[in-house]
């Protein structure tokens, strides 16, 4: 599938009271839409399922929602699941639609903390409900950020061979005269994607320039979705992949390598940091 990205968070203007959790939890709800995923909201521990109803204030079209920096991979009893409903009432009983069917969440590192659920884009509802479930015993779900989006532009070209992904762990090591050393863990792993492109047509190149302009280089964190889809059915692991990070390209440049074919800058997308102990 094609690459997609989302820049504008649809939940950013909501008050903390717009998030109603079951079981009821209100502490630190503001962390859910503060734009950073390193401060985690924690739901009261409960067995098998937890859900949140988000009151958008008015009927709103959403094309997807990213569940960022969660600890759902640690939920007991095997593969946890999630589904998204939308309705016209807070009780999720009126004109209910299933925006995303039950999806088995990817719990394989290093992609086990961030998931994106993409919808068909046909639902315009005021109330959206996300339901996590797992089997067996009680578990306290923690979540760094909910990033819903109403638009996810796609790129018509994927990157060339030679791209790749990295996981960066930051450390500091003090070396001593005896040859001994002492290492400190400072943070990580921080995921990053390197995406080289070449031989773009002008329109393809302009898509990248549009992305660069939309995120204002490394100023605005955004969602990078390597596998775009627009379906209500459950997402495969590849379709859940997402990076919430920055585009580490300040100057977007290109050269005309061949007649009307352009070699644009390589894109480097690096995830935002997480909290201590993540």
């Amino acid at each position, binding site marked *: 599938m094609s690459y997609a990205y989302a820049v504008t968070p649809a939940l950013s203007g909501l008050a903390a009271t717009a998030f109603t959790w079951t079981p009821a939890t209100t502490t630190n709800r503001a962390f859910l839409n503060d734009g950073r995923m390193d401060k985690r909201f924690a739901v009261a521990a409960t067995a098998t399922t937890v859900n949140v109803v988000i009151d958008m204030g008015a009927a709103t079209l959403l094309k997807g929602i990213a569940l960022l920096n969660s600890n759902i991979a640690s939920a007991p009893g095997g593969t946890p699941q999630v589904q998204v409903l939308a309705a016209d009432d807070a009780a999720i009983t009126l004109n209910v639609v299933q925006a995303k069917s039950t999806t088995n969440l990817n719990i394989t590192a290093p992609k086990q903390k961030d998931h994106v659920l993409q919808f068909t884009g046909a639902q315009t509802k005021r109330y959206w409900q996300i339901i996590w479930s797992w089997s067996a015993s009680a578990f306290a779900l923690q979540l760094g950020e909910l990033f819903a989006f109403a638009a996810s532009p796609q790129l018509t070209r994927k990157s060339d061979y030679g791209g790749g992904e990295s996981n960066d762990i930051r450390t500091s090591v*003090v070396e001593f*005269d005896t040859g001994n050393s002492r290492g400190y*863990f400072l943070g990580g792993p921080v995921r990053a994607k390197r995406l080289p492109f070449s031989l773009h047509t002008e329109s393809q190149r302009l898509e990248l320039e549009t992305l660069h302009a939309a995120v204002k280089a490394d100023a605005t964190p955004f969602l990078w979705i390597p596998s775009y889809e627009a379906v209500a059915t459950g997402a495969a692991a590849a379709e859940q992949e997402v990076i919430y990070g920055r585009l580490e390209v300040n100057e977007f440049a290109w050269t005309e390598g061949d007649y009307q074919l352009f070699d644009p800058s390589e894109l480097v997308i690096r995830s935002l940091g997480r909290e201590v*102990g993540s």
Partner: protein
Amino acid sequence: MAFADEVVKDGRELIWALDVSTDNFATTLYRWATRSFLLGANWYEERLCRLGNIKRGFAADHLPAASSFSASVDNTDFVADFLVTQATVETVTFKARFRLYCGVTDSAGAVVTQLIGTFVLLDFPTRDSSVVKLSLADDSMGLLADLLVPPNFADWEGIATPATEVFVGQGVENIDTQAPFPLQFGPPPYIGFPLGHYGSPILGTSFDGTAFVSSGGVGLPRRTLFPVVVCATRDSATITADDVSGPVYCVFGQQTNRPDLAGFKVWLPETFPNPKGAAGSIHLRMWKAYKSDTITKNGYAWKILWLAFSLDAYVAWMTSSLWALQNVPWTPSGALDLGRAYPLAADYPVPLTSAAGVPSGSWSQKWCSAVFRAIDYFELAGKPGSQLTGKANPGHPIDIMQDLVEHYSALGSSAVDTTRFARCRKATTKLAKGMVAAGDTRGTAARGGQALNTQNLSAFGLGTLRSTIRDLASSHDFDVFMTTSGQVGLVSQFADFETQTGTFPSVDEEKQAGVSDRIPSVGERWSPYNRVFIEAPDGGQLGPYDNAAAITSWGRVIAKVVGGKWWASLFDSVLVAGLTSSPMWQGRNLESKARPIISFVTDVSILAVDLGEYFTMSWTRGGANAAYSSSLWRIESMVISPSIGRVSVEAVWFADLQTDQPYLLDNETLVVRATPAHSLTVTDGSSTITRAGGSFITDAVAAGDIIRLRDTTETAATPDTEAFTRNRDVRVASVTDALNLVIVVGDTDFGTAGAHVIAAADWLMLRGATTYPSVITDAANYPSGSAFFGKISSGGVYSNAAAANKLLDG
């Protein structure tokens, strides 16, 4: 899960965190960190993007080294704008205080933290498009820099003083009404400053003149009641009999017509028989001590200790024959001057009644001023001056230090590390004395010809508290620093009780890099010296005082100026008796010794040890030739590099801490030959005692020593023929070999027939009366000059012989 336990472990996550508060941490405004984490119920937000190196250390002046560090705070979302925004600078930035923590994760991933220090803004923050840059310094340059400003004459006016009466300072001329009143600490006498000194008399027209009504009902005119201010105090307690009262003197200043009277002290009775009245019927009151009502200045409550002084009574006293009979002539240096004539009324520097050049009618303004001009200052023997802590016996330097921090600085009552203060209090024995006042440095002409005594002041001005603490600490050889808990801490420059009895952490060689050592350069802390000059209270120097043996040994003189400005004996000596000849080397913790300074780099685990604390460390240089083997060191400074988790340490060598001047301790362990690790066998009827292991020879047991038996298996409930035959002392006659000795033949009843094995914990080898240390080189001896602690000491000084018997058995 303490920081000290976790920080030494490998692979821990390292975090730095900063608390921001505007109410001295009653509440916390922001919690920022190098990485987000949850601590208790509080989230620390990832916002610290750069932390500069943080230096903590002592400076040569006994205070924390003046240092600051920088921190950059992510402000891309404008959250930190409040530190710079004009509208909030006055409400927030001025008051902002910061606490820096080092955090590490434990094995469960939870964060444990260690406070590194509490800081204030050294300069205003700088904001650019993405960050706010902070320049932070600890309280040695913050709230500990300046004293609370005591009230002045203008503050005092209109204040009920004493109750129901209002002091009115009308007619005041040539007095700086804005100059803060002095603070006086230490043992009396204190200086009294007559406010009518420089020019016009001060008439307390509404003052409590009734207090001066004599027993005969004759009151003296209020118009000649003058205030003599002693000091300001934060003590809110009502004045007591001991406050201010006690002998009061006036001291003559330098007079052009009678220079020989300069320094004369004249005792001034509180009341005396009216020379003009009927015998025994009427008494005049010359002075009365008062404490003003509360004066609130800058939000802090103060009171003024002062005397109401009657010029009427003074003149009556001076013109009578009574004063000459009850005063002895004092030399300017304070000694009795038996060869000197009594200055009589006619000798007073200015005519007390009427004379040429002074208007007749006596009580003119000019006449009052002329009378006062002869008086340089008043001297009062009451106590406690401005002191609150230990005020029953004022003058302990640590009490004064505690007062300065708790009551005379904005830090307040919780700012003192009481444990460290208590340690230092025990190790500091000399009395301190000093005064902080607004010195009037104008020429005498500008002050109406009056030579006000100002040489003993710590002048009030910019950074007064810091300079006052420096003077106090340097006079009493202790160091001041800001502890990791953000409080003011003290540490004795030499041993205290805890250093003699404590155990110390070690810094393993596996955690050392870039080790080097050197002897401190002349002028640095701990540089060796064999000649001292004492900084006198007037700012001059006394000396030289030599360590003659060291000068001979070293072959050269290395001089050092040591503090003395707040040394009580010196203060009073200069004030009263001129230059002192006190034996400086015995009176102070001075030494002629080369103490190496070692420098090395280690990791943040050293943060569990604070400044002035001790640790052991070896430097074997790869095992080739150990420069130091398990030596004791005292931390002098640390430079913390937060971004890389390195700490550069400087420490001073103190391997002699526990051996050079051992302390006499209550438990008297020095007479213990050895603590056995093996059982002992005694056999009923036998004088031979056998130990299961170890060696009597190695333990240096000698004839005359005592074997103390404390067999816990022998109880009163199951007595032998005679109870407690194995709970007694037996005396050694001779040592046979490593495992056997023979006791002095006497009572060899050790219970029932046969052998009895006494557990290792139940017997002990002690020196006996004939084997007590007899030579100075004996390790168990007490070198001359040893300091005392425990039941036989009082404030670190041997108390008396009655207490000495406690030495024998704790």
